């Protein structure tokens, strides 16, 4: 364990710490962020009304829409001069979700990532290849600073150029790989084409996240690399990677509860669910300064596992993500909302666009096909014009989503409608099985 004091703390002591920190963060946002003060006033509550940790349920939720409406810095609770880093992720309508970090926040992030790397068996003797993207996305830099904190040798390859990734992995004697699970499988495929047997390399473990994956996929990665594959959870709004990670038991992800307070709620009613029931994960950050979040609704479905873990950590574990409460897809690590495609079609003169997203894994990479029904307004008798239309829509959709897509023009009414509502998404990847 990287921080045994916090990771194996007795539950009562941890709850006392959480309570102290919760009071402080609620007071902080109430004093510094008009949005939170207004929401709390509307709910008829002040920080002084909180009497115990269980009063958390009286605080209003914060949603992704709130983040977007306060773009870019409206929810920041620190002086902007004290903010030393910005990250951002894409949203439904093109407006990004912006998060900020003070020096202390970056310290917390490195700390939880150091715990995560340690949990996956990593330490100062390891060489960690960070093949998550570096940039506005939190993946690359998040893992990077945690790896430096544990004193590992960081190989910051970022995403892409798979052949070079594999060459460096071999030449540098990389022992730990961090990337999305689908990219790991893509690397395995390219390695096989290059005649490199990954099982012969010193790489012993991988930290995989930023997209949902399944147990069969884990087994494939473990088999092809000859490693142990660890599931890591995080989202930029909360901090980035490092909110929770598996231990060698691989039975649920230990949540860093001294920094992130977790609840599971019924997504319909908003009521907290008893421990062990499946619902939406809601997080409150306990220690962040620049971008604290109170009861943030992740829209990720999971459940909490509370039975003691053989690894010695006393933190509660969350089950691997079991689904989403909205229609967001994660394709090659990028968040995609079907409504983004609708927006593009409306902008291109379609009055009532009918479209469907078909997501599949081709080889080991996600493939997105956008099926668009050809209305009479779009139709032309010349092949050339239809192909131009298809190419134009592809370019616009790609620029809206930030990933490559294939566009397929289909006949009207060929996209199935259920109860008058079109089935917008077919996801053949079976990500949430098991």
């Amino acid at each position, binding site marked *: 364990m990287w921080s045994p004091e916090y990771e194996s703390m007795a539950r009562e002591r941890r709850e006392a710490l959480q309570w102290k920190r919760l009071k402080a963060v609620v007071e902080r946002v109430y004093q510094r962020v008009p949005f939170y003060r207004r929401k709390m006033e509307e709910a008829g509550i002040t920080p002084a009304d909180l009497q115990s940790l269980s009063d958390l349920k009286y605080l209003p939720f914060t949603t992704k829409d709130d983040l977007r409406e306060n773009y870019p810095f409206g929810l920041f609770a620190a002086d902007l001069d004290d903010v030393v880093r910005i990250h951002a992720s894409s949203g439904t309508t093109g407006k990004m979700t912006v998060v900020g970090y003070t020096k202390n926040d970056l310290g917390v992030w490195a700390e939880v990532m150091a715990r995560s790397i340690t949990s996956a068996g990593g330490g100062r003797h390891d060489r960690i290849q960070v093949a998550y993207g570096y940039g506005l996305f939190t993946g690359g830099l998040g893992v990077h600073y945690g790896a430096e904190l544990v004193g590992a040798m960081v190989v910051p390859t970022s995403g892409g150029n798979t052949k070079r990734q594999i060459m460096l992995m071999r030449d540098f004697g990389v022992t730990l790989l961090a990337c999305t699970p689908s990219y790991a499988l893509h690397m395995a495929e390219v390695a096989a084409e290059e005649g490199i047997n990954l099982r012969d390399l010193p790489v012993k473990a991988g930290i995989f996240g930023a997209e949902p994956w399944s147990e069969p996929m884990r087994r494939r990665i473990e088999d092809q690399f000859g490693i142990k594959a660890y599931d890591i959870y995080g989202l930029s709004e909360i901090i980035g990677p490092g909110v929770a990670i598996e231990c060698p038991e691989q039975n649920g992800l230990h949540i860093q509860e001294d920094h992130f307070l977790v609840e599971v709620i019924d997504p319909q009613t908003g009521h907290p669910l008893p421990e062990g029931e499946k619902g939406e994960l809601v997080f409150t950050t306990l220690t962040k300064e620049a971008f604290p979040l109170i009861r943030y609704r992740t829209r990720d479905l999971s459940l909490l596992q509370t039975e003691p873990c053989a690894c010695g950590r006393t933190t509660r574990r969350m089950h691997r993500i079991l689904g989403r409460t909205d229609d967001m897809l994660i394709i090659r690590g990028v968040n995609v909302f079907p409504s983004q495609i609708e927006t593009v079609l409306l902008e291109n003169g379609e009055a009532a666009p009918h479209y469907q997203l078909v997501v599949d894994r081709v080889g080991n990479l996600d493939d997105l096909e956008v099926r668009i*029904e*050809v*209305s*009479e307004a779009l*139709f*032309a*008798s*010349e*092949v*050339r014009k*239809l*192909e131009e239309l*298809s190419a134009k829509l592809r370019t616009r959709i790609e620029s809206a989503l930030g990933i490559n897509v294939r566009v*397929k*023009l*289909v*006949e*009207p*009414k*060929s996209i199935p409608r259920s109860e008058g509502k079109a089935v917008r998404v077919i996801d053949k990847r079976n990500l949430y099985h098991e």
Partner: protein
Amino acid sequence: MKIREIAVFLENKSGRLAQVTRILGTNGINIRALSLADTADFGILRLIVNEPAKALAVLREAGFTVRTTEVIAVEVPDCPGGLAGVLQELETKGINIEYMYAFVGKAEEKAIVIFRVEEIERAVELLTGSQVRLLPESKVYQI
């Protein structure tokens, strides 16, 4: 001297072409000429029929994406070099062809070819009174 062609959008899946022809048949519509353009993903069926307005209505009713396109019908001498002569004439006049296809029937021992051209108004103007003979709608639909 423009002719109305019916264009139908078809996905590349079995039975669609048969369905179009069946719908036209049961509605008593006779196909005079047709061409099918296809790509990897979709096809475009172009038809000259005896009753274009009715064909449009019944296909639309059946849920197809259809539209009418204006084309010209040209009489071509049914002999070696007949089509070459016509194409030469179009080229000389600077008329660009998008696509073309031949008629099933004949008119007075002449073959008939349908042309979809760019700037159709200008093309009709240029060809009227030239050696290239355009056929009127009334004649084409009845052949």
